[in-house]
């Protein structure tokens, strides 16, 4: 296919090998370009005739019909292999299906739970930190109180205490 939307012989042969001589099987956007090429090129027309001949040969093979006995056997399969129809209150194929679903949900819950749980080492540090923080907090609260007091009472009064 050229940039001008025309079909060159090389592309035509490649497409002909794929789609054959039934125009309706060719991609829609190429059908006009195909018609143009066939009008202009004797060489393309010769190739097209070859492809038409091959398609005609393929059409010459008659389809082998299924025997009535086979059709009857196939139609009777549901009677030989009954399947329980799904009811509105039990939409599952098997009685085990919801059990598997429940087990999968439980496993998923455990996995997610484990992955979200805090690391025990981090937890220990946190406890120590809490103790430290508490200690600091006590000191801080004293400092804060002193500061508040000093603010409330005046810096001079605090200095006097020291």
């Amino acid at each position, binding site marked *: 296919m050229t940039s001008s939307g025309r079909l060159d012989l090389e592309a035509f042969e490649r497409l002909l*090998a*794929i789609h054959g001589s039934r125009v309706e099987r060719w991609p829609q956007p190429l059908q006009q370009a195909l018609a143009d090429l066939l009008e202009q090129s004797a060489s393309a027309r010769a190739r097209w005739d*070859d492809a038409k001949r091959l*398609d005609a*040969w393929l059409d010459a*093979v008659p389809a*082998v019909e*299924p025997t009535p006995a086979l059709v009857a056997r196939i*139609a009777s399969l*549901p009677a030989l292999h009954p399947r329980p129809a799904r009811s509105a209150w039990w939409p599952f194929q098997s009685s085990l299906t919801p059990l598997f679903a429940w087990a999968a949900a439980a496993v998923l819950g455990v996995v997610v739970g484990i992955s979200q749980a805090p690391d025990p080492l981090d937890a220990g540090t946190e406890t120590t930190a809490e103790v430290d923080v508490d200690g600091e907090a006590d000191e801080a609260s004293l400092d804060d109180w002193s500061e508040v007091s000093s603010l409330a009472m005046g810096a001079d009064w605090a200095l006097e205490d020291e």
Partner: protein
Amino acid sequence: MASATLDRVSEPEDDDQLIARVQSGDPRAYRELCDRHVRGVHAFVYRMLGSRAEAEEVCQESFLRLWKHADTFVSRSKPSTWLYRVAHNLAIDRLRRRREASHPLGIEEVPTSERPSLHLYDKQVAEAVERALAELPERQRAAISLVHYQGMSNAEAAEVLGVKVRALESLLARGRQQLRERLADFKTREGSDV
């Protein structure tokens, strides 16, 4: 109002609606799908296997799977494509087993009474084409059968064979090329007739 209801009732269901009913265990929907596709599936597996007995077995097994395993059907493909894919896989299994048992692939002679009346030359052409098709590699034969005889689009045929569309197109091109070469004698004869 009444005519609208009648129209809705008489409107045939498409394959998607039917497969949904088969999934719920409805045998009438299954039989409707069989009526629509049994000829095509049978013709396809016969072309793949070249044996009426095996084609019947594979065809029956394909529809049994449709009935028993309809719930594994995924709606992103057409039910017919799914059915042909099952049939194709079963046919390929047969061919593999046949190869392991060293049985050559051939096309059985179909009784003359079952063939539409053909002129001698047409009969010769038909037999030569059947032989040429039987000699093609399996995938090329499947590609040509699905596209030419079953009228599938290249995308649908690619889905049945489990290949990309480009690979399917390559199978079609190589298959046609081989058929042209194998049937070259007829071209010469037709040319001399003209």
